[in-house]
């Protein structure tokens, strides 16, 4: 389904769409307030962008440095070239532990790799422990936002869901009550789990440690009670020096939710005595993207979600309309790299307003990349009717005479066509808007009549 069809459906429930838009706008405003408290905010963005620029230009050396240091610390490092290999590595570790149940904290990478269905097919129960993710898991839905997975749901939806799944009181929508029910339910899972899977926010090459940020504490509850910690990391999540964390951690939570920092920022350098840490480095198309000069910058992304919160299209269409693991503006420049045909409508789901680029903490030129993907898509997926009309238009615009004639024709046509022909479903502009009044003469004609003699 194209983005435009999906968003038309989303907007049919006008009240819900309005609430979705206002809620995310509020988060954008929180981000603004938080960024204004940091006088060096714009400078931090520039520095963060340069650090990531360096990482992308030196990725192989940094990966080797990271692997060497992590290994020295007792972390077992694995490499996966694609999603399938990543999933197999996870399964192999679980099998070695004779594990039938695993707890998992938020990792968009594991969503990207479709890890959950793979593990389930292989007899492993996966329990997503982030509250928002557990909710969408119960509903058999993917997350609709990379930071706020259940943003598309209202509390009455969650109340009804928990009544069914957790036997909470019917009709009790109190968020505190519902959260406590989830706490009790998931606490039991944490205590039983032998293996816990997490994502990675940052991997530090210099020290071979990695950082996981949460507000709920679910990543830590999982890993510190389990015997084995599996951390899944996209290769682009590296940063060179430990001190670079100062820059990124000041930007991340403020950009994502308007908090100065997430509640917990855990640094894993080595396993607890008697336990294991496995870190899986995943490519899955990242080296391809690295090779695309115009789109390489998209790999700087630190998955804050600020671009989604600020995007007027995302707010009015919801994450599901993008049908990609990472939705919104950043998703629209990452996903076409994975499958150009499948995601060809995404770069067009934008007015190129540029707001996303202005909020991105690592200064990815998102709106420019959206424009560039449009050029690639029309070349790779030719739409013959459209291509023809573009060639026609080009022919008109390059010839002053053709342009004048077509202008006259167009204005005459619009003036003389009956309303029923203009305001019908075939004429999309006319469906929702009134056409402009057609003036008697163009500016050019007016100029010729009123000024030409003076030239």
């Amino acid at each position, binding site marked *: 389904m194209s983005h435009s069809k999906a968003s038309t459906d989303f907007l049919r429930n006008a009240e819900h769409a309005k609430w979705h838009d206002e809620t995310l706008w509020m988060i954008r405003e929180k981000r603004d307030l938080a960024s204004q408290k940091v006088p060096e905010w714009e400078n931090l963005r520039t520095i963060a962008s340069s650090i990531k620029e360096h990482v992308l230009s030196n990725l192989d050396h940094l*990966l080797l440095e990271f692997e060497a240091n992590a290994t020295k610390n007792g972390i077992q490092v694995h*490499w996966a070239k694609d999603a399938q290999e990543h999933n197999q590595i996870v399964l192999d570790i679980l099998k070695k532990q004779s594990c039938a149940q695993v707890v998992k904290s938020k990792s968009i990478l594991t969503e990207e790799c479709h890890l959950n269905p793979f593990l389930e097919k292989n007899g492993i129960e996966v329990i997503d422990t982030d509250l928002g993710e557990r909710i969408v898991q119960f509903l058999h839905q993917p997350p609709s936002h990379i930071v706020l997975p259940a943003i598309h749901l209202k*509390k009455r939806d969650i109340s009804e869901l928990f009544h069914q799944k957790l036997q909470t009181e019917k009709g009790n929508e109190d968020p*505190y009550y519902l959260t406590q029910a989830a706490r009790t339910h998931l606490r039991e899972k944490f205590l039983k789990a032998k293996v816990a899977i997490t994502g990675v926010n940052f991997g530090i090459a210099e020290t071979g*440690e990695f950082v996981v940020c949460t507000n709920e504490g679910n990543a830590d509850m999982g890993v*510190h009670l389990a015997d084995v910690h599996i951390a899944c990391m996209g*290769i682009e999540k590296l940063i060179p020096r430990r001190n670079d964390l100062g820059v990124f951690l000041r930007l991340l939570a403020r950009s994502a939710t308007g908090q100065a920092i997430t*509640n917990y920022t855990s640094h894993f350098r080595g396993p*607890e005595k008697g336990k294991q840490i496995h870190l899986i480095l995943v490519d899955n198309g990242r080296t391809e993207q690295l090779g695309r000069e115009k789109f390489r910058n998209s790999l700087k992304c630190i998955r804050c979600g600020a671009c989604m919160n600020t995007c007027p299209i995302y707010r009015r269409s919801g994450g599901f309309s993008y049908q990609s693991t990472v939705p919104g503006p950043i998703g629209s420049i990452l996903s076409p790299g994975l499958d150009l045909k499948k995601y060809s409508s995404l770069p067009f789901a934008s007015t190129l307003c540029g707001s996303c680029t202005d909020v991105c903490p690592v200064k990815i030129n998102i709106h420019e990349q959206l424009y560039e993907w449009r050029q690639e898509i029309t070349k790779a997926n030719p739409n013959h009717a459209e291509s023809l009309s573009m060639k026609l238009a080009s022919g008109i615009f390059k010839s002053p005479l053709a342009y004048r004639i077509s202008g006259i024709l167009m204005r005459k046509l619009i003036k003389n066509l009956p309303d029923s022909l203009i305001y019908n479903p075939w004429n999309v502009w006319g469906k929702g808007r009134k056409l402009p009044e057609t003036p008697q003469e163009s500016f050019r004609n007016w100029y010729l009549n009123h000024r030409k003699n003076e030239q």
Partner: protein
Amino acid sequence: MSSRQEILEKIKKLRLDQTELPTIPEFKNPLNTEEEFKASIEANKGEIIPEEKLMSWISETGFQKILNFSQLINLNTSYAKIEDAHELDQLQVAIIDGQFGVGENGAIWITNEQVPFRAIPFITEHLVIVLPKNEIVSTMHQAYIKTSSQSYSFGLFIAGPSKTADIEQSLVIGAHGAKSLRVVLV
């Protein structure tokens, strides 16, 4: 070829020009860091309390399942000897030391040195952190410089009680981790 080799080869083949790694400037923050830290902890829904208040809170609540891991505060606890983190599930109060705090966001740094089990700050129902008041820095930059030569196997910045806003953006304190954070400045 292993995937490791394949990935590294693919990157190498691109022959990208290495760009410069920027130096991070020293950002001076003129604010009173203790005041800033207090405001940050409160904004994160934590509480700063004096030592006396801690004792009276504990006796008011009648909590019995308390463990004190702090070197800075005297409180004898006769709650069980813990062999395994799972035994901490019923823990009501954990008292631990923090090494230092960060003014701009209320983050407190601890490492595996402060907690015999890494699960402690998360699994406990209520968390108390004892912090030397003259160990507060202003920004995260200073925090990382301060800890740059530390060796640890686990480090944590903790900035408040566990929280979530996943249900219609309503802030709920006490998701999976501690339901409260009290900071005692000594």
